[in-house]
């Protein structure tokens, strides 16, 4: 086990998959010569050459479409969006081509493509560059949506995503690239898609958190432990398909649930999980499902306002106290 950053873990995953399967290639803005806007693709141009690590023009719709076409003829493209904010320009190719091709071709064309890059809030990059778009993509049948929160998950899930025969939206978090964690050395280490992980076991309240909210929820759980409240923290890791069974089983044990996310609250993944809990665990709830989401406003540029717009440890603690009837 080596302790490495999420950035290095992603880089290892790309290197190992490029080595393992010559059909895999990388494409995106600044991925090659500049080695990636966030240096996730560091050293890969040098190692694999410009046929497999390709710089694109600033044309998201264009190179996303190129990727879909390449996937249709048997390659396994990994398309980097410098941030997922720019994927908005490519949604026609992602939603109308990648997601639907297998269905509309009557099963003739799998699209083994990964669209990856950072999403969510960064530091003071304002409204257009701080968006959590996972609920957009999770909405569409035909797409898988993956969001790792640790170095090991980042590596294991990216490798599984590249090996998967369907289009995968792989959303990293810009603030988390430097987070370190232990990662198994095994070059065949993978984590299956669609499997949640209990990041911390507890008995009183279930907290479901993903991506940036996982470390925040774990800190809240630490603080609550001192008050005698035992929190179970679950990271779904894959948003679609969602491992709802693990969450429901936890609620059956704790009878209370808090959902934490960075994205806006309306029609969010939290909203979806709430509905599932209501349908599947109604008789086990001792308190209403409590959601903690990002503010329902475009992300402010001002530092103090930006801090207020992203859920923090205190908000999660308050939510847990509320469902545990401690206030």
């Amino acid at each position, binding site marked *: 086990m080596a302790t490495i950053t999420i950035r290095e873990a992603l880089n290892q995953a790309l290197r190992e998959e490029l080595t393992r399967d010559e059909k895999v290639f990388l494409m995106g803005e600044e991925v090659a010569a500049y080695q990636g806007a966030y240096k996730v693709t560091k050293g890969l141009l040098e190692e694999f050459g410009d046929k497999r690590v390709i710089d694109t023009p600033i044309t998201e719709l264009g190179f996303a479409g190129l990727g879909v076409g390449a996937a249709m003829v048997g390659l396994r493209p990994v398309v980097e969006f410098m941030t997922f904010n720019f994927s908005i320009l490519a949604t026609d190719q992602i939603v109308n081509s990648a997601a639907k091709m297998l269905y509309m071709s009557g099963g003739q064309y799998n699209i083994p493509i990964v669209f990856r890059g950072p999403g969510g809030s960064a530091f003071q990059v304002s409204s257009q560059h701080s968006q959590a778009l996972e609920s957009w993509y999770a909405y569409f049948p035909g797409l898988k949506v993956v969001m790792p929160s640790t170095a090991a998950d980042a590596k294991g899930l990216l490798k599984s995503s590249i090996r998967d025969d369907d289009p995968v939206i792989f959303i990293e978090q810009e603030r988390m690239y430097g987070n370190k964690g232990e990662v198994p050395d095994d070059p065949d280490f993978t984590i299956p898609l669609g499997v949640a992980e209990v990041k911390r076991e507890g008995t009183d309240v279930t907290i479901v958190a993903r991506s940036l909210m996982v470390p925040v929820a774990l800190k809240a759980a630490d603080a609550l432990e001192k008050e005698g409240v035992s929190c179970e923290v679950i990271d779904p890791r894959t948003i679609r398909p969602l491992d709802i069974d693990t969450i429901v089983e936890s609620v059956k044990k704790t*009878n209370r649930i808090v959902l934490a996310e960075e994205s806006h609250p309306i029609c969010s993944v939290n909203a979806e999980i709430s509905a599932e809990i209501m349908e599947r665990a*109604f*008789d*086990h*709830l*001792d*308190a209403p499902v409590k959601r903690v989401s990002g503010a329902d406003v475009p992300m402010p540029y001002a530092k103090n306002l930006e801090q207020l717009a992203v859920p923090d440890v205190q908000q999660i603690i308050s939510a847990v106290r509320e469902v545990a*009837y401690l206030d």
Partner: protein
Amino acid sequence: MPKLSPTMEEGQIARWLKKEGDKVSMGEPLAEIDTDKATMEMQALANGVLRKILVKEGESAPLGQLIGVIAEPDEDISSVLNEAPAKQSAAAAPQKEAQPASSQREQATPPPPKPEAKPAEAASGNGASGRLIVSPLAARMAAEAGLDLRSLQGSGPGGRIIKRDVEAALSREPAAAPASKQPTFRVIEGKAQQPLVAGASAYRDVPASEIRRTIARRLVTSLGPVPHFFLTSEIEMDRAAEMRRGINSLDPDLKISVNDIIIKVTAAALMQHPEVNASFQDKFVRYYEHVDIGVAVAIEDGLITPVVRSADLKSLSQIASEVRELAERARSRKLKPEEYTGATFSVSNLGMFGIDEFTAIINPPEGGILAIGAMTPRPVVRDGEVVVRQIMRVTMSCDHRIIDGATGAKFLQTFKKILENPLYLVV
């Protein structure tokens, strides 16, 4: 003063949670009230400012009395306050005020103008007539425990009954409900298992205790594989006979016999003494869920015991017609094996042959058999007088490996009690 418990008539202010001049919003805790049952939180029903406290901490007020005024900061509340002393003496007045004015139409003088500020009332829905507010989990837990949610006080927001309230209630009254029930039959603990013979009683196997095994081992060396002992009781049959006449006069087609009544009573008594409705199986004792009674029927060259299944669940008329039908087919040798095997207990009646009393041999693996003698008028002493009663002698044979003297005697006592007072069958 709001009604915070179903039986509350007045309440004492334990504590005001707001001072005069404090802003209050709807649903916010306003005061703690001691009711006849508990200290309850009262919530504000309106937004505004707590302008005036009329009943101080420690003071009591009857239901409906004005205890404080919530109004806008600059609102004129003098009319409400002027009216207050009058209301203090007439507790019912504010309740009238809450009703539509139509009920006061016949009054000669117009009703006093309604104050804008309303007396604070509890917002909790868990009041005497209000809808219960309860978490889904608490509702399910209460239902499973047979707990009346209306007996609980919710500690959640708005008086919501939550898990901890149900848990607290359950720990307060351990098994109160079952204790109050009059048991008409008892159940042996253990996992119920299904029988191999179709239609036969389910049973529970319980490991034979060390003492049972020792008793079994010792007794079989003395008296063969099924060590019998016998208990005899005299039973006054006047009421049972009267009941039989009464039933048959209702409908001659019913043709209930005394033996049918005995079968029914045996089943009822066995359900109260499950340790007798059992079978010794060497390593364990098998307790049956229901009573399948073998009825000994004499046939041309022998004896056969057709079985009345689940006699405890059947009516007298069902038992009568079933026994008649089974006996007929027994005599014509048309019984199927499953109709004469797998009883849990037997009854043998030689009364029709004028036998006063006899002992019957247990049909293994059953635990016992009742030998029924003839019903004959005999002089007996009742209240110091010699009177004539219909007396029937019953002798119970018990398998001593599972039934001890006292166990068998208690069963026979119950059997006698029911047979002498057959109304027990319908109680």
